[in-house]
């Protein structure tokens, strides 16, 4: 009975519709966010930012994008990184070709360009369903990789299509150190997460779940099915596009088209399966596992065998473990880590009185 719901009553719809209904949870979340924004930039080192937090934030955002499309709206996408790549290259070109464009404006515009691209590849959803539609997203994946490699304009005629992040500044403050890049990422991800939560709790979000679970019934209730799908494609791609900008500008600094390949798309898909399909919180849990797990594995190998693992072997082991985890979660806990977390909290409510 460490944590309990008893005595928690609501008197009006506003209180009831609170995003974090429980006061303890609300305090914990506020404290956590304050810690992330105020303390982490001071106490963190470059390794923490560069190897953990920056990829974690970018992947979380991409996962939110994919979860909107696949977890909420039920449209399987295998081309997540195509939309990330569009965002990254769009931001690069906006920066390059429109002098004086503020950084945040170029990021938002890049998201919008990715969204338009998403609508284009979502158009087949008018006639196609399920795997047939998933193959359309694969087409997007291969086409984008090819176009960025072959068409020099996108990378300002770099021979291998590589782009490098421009110097970044917001209101005259240079975003140059890992800590500042982290703050920029954190700010963008926090705002977009709030927007995503708002969306999923609105009629738009209910419509997504409705077409996922019962498309025919949804149509009968007057849900404009095709439009709802396109909106899911657009918003999902908007998120993925901005995640791509973060990936390229704050995490890697320099990216090539092959950095946005099919395996990375699968990686994002794995994040939402592990974290929880149809859950925004799950995106963060899944992304944390995806980033931290390989680091732990190599630490573990170092400690055990006293030498670093051959990178090829490390990758094989990662693949086996991630593949098994995916199967295990789908079989045992299809709702992902987020459900395990909730079950743990429910245990706390009754502990030590009953199971």
């Amino acid at each position: 009975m460490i944590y309990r719901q008893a005595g928690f009553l609501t008197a009006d719809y506003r209180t009831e519709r609170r995003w974090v209904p429980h006061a303890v949870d609300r305090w914990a979340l506020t404290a956590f966010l304050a810690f992330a924004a105020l303390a982490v930039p001071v106490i963190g080192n470059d390794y923490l930012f560069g190897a953990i937090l920056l990829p974690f934030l970018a992947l979380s955002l991409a996962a939110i994008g994919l979860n909107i499309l696949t977890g909420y709206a039920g449209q399987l996408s295998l081309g997540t990184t195509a939309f990330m790549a569009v965002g990254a290259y769009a931001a690069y070109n906006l920066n390059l070709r429109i002098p004086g464009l503020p950084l945040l404006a170029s990021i938002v515009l890049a998201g919008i360009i990715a969204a338009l691209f998403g609508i284009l590849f979502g158009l087949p959803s008018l006639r196609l369903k399920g795997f047939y539609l998933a193959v359309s997203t694969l087409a997007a994946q291969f086409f984008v990789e090819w176009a960025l490699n072959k068409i020099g304009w996108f990378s300002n005629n770099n021979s291998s299509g590589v782009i490098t992040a421009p110097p970044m500044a917001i209101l005259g403050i240079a975003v140059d150190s890992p800590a500042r890049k982290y703050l920029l990422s954190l700010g963008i991800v926090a705002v977009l997460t709030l927007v995503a939560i708002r969306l999923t709790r609105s009629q738009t979000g209910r419509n997504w779940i409705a077409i996922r679970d019962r498309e025919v019934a949804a149509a009968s209730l007057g849900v404009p099915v095709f439009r709802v799908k396109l909106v899911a494609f657009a918003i999902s791609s908007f998120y993925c596009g901005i995640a791509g900008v973060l990936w390229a500008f704050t995490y890697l600094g320099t990216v090539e088209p092959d950095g946005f390949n099919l395996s990375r798309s699968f990686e994002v898909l794995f994040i939402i399966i592990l974290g929880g399909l149809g859950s925004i919180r799950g995106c963060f849990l899944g992304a944390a596992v995806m980033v931290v797990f390989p680091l732990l594995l190599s630490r573990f190998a170092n400690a055990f065998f006293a030498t670093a693992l051959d990178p090829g072997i490390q990758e094989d082991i990662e693949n086996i473990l991630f593949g098994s985890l995916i199967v295990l979660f789908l079989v045992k806990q299809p709702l992902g880590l987020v459900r395990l977390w909730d079950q743990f909290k429910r245990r706390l409510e009754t502990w030590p009185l009953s199971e």
Partner: protein
Amino acid sequence: MPPVPLLELDGIDLSFGGVRAIANVSFTVEKAAICAVIGPNGAGKSSLINVISGLYRPARGVIRFDGKSYARLTPAMASRIGVARTFQNIALFKAMTVLDNIIMGRAGKARAGAVEDALGLPRSRRDEQVNREKAEEIIEFLDLEAIRHVAAGTLPYGVQKRVELGRALIAQPRLLLLDEPMAGMTFSEKREMCRFILDANATLGATVILIEHDIGVVMDLSQHIVVLDYGEKIGDGTPDEIRSNRRVIEAYLGAETPQAA
């Protein structure tokens, strides 16, 4: 001049891969009536409901709703002109709460778009407010208060049927299509459901077309009965007329196969 009927079906034909599911069926349903469609299994009753709600497109025939003709009715159009329905095999959104399921019945009435929803602009907030108020009315009407935050998929069968009725009613439909609303229910559940249907008809003013196998219920509830057999209409009239209709009796009792129907 007689009042315009709410629904007129004129020569509806529907087939699946060469098999005729509905053959040249015509009938009219007056405003505020409760009309039952009955017939043996496979008679085309559900197909007919699917045609009226725009899910199936008939090969021939016209649907007139409140005097307006529709040759190609889509589900979206049907919902817009005021047709709401329930499904034979319950088509609730299992992962959603009862409250959200009922609110989904107003999906076609949303005024805010995705961007407004994303940013929480006034129209989106107002939509939510109105949705919630209307949903509470329905929840009270159908006695669902205690389970409003329960996931629909976890509820007993009879309660799910009631939630699905609520989802149809919140749209304030002019025509309510109920596909076997009482199938698999216990006696007391059936009685409760009858009360809800009669109330919806009397207080909310919905015209009702229902498919039902329990002939007792049908005779009690409806003023008008249409009988289908092998996709053809074989009876159409008041309960008394149907009771004495020879072809209906033959179809139901399976007496001599009618030679020249």
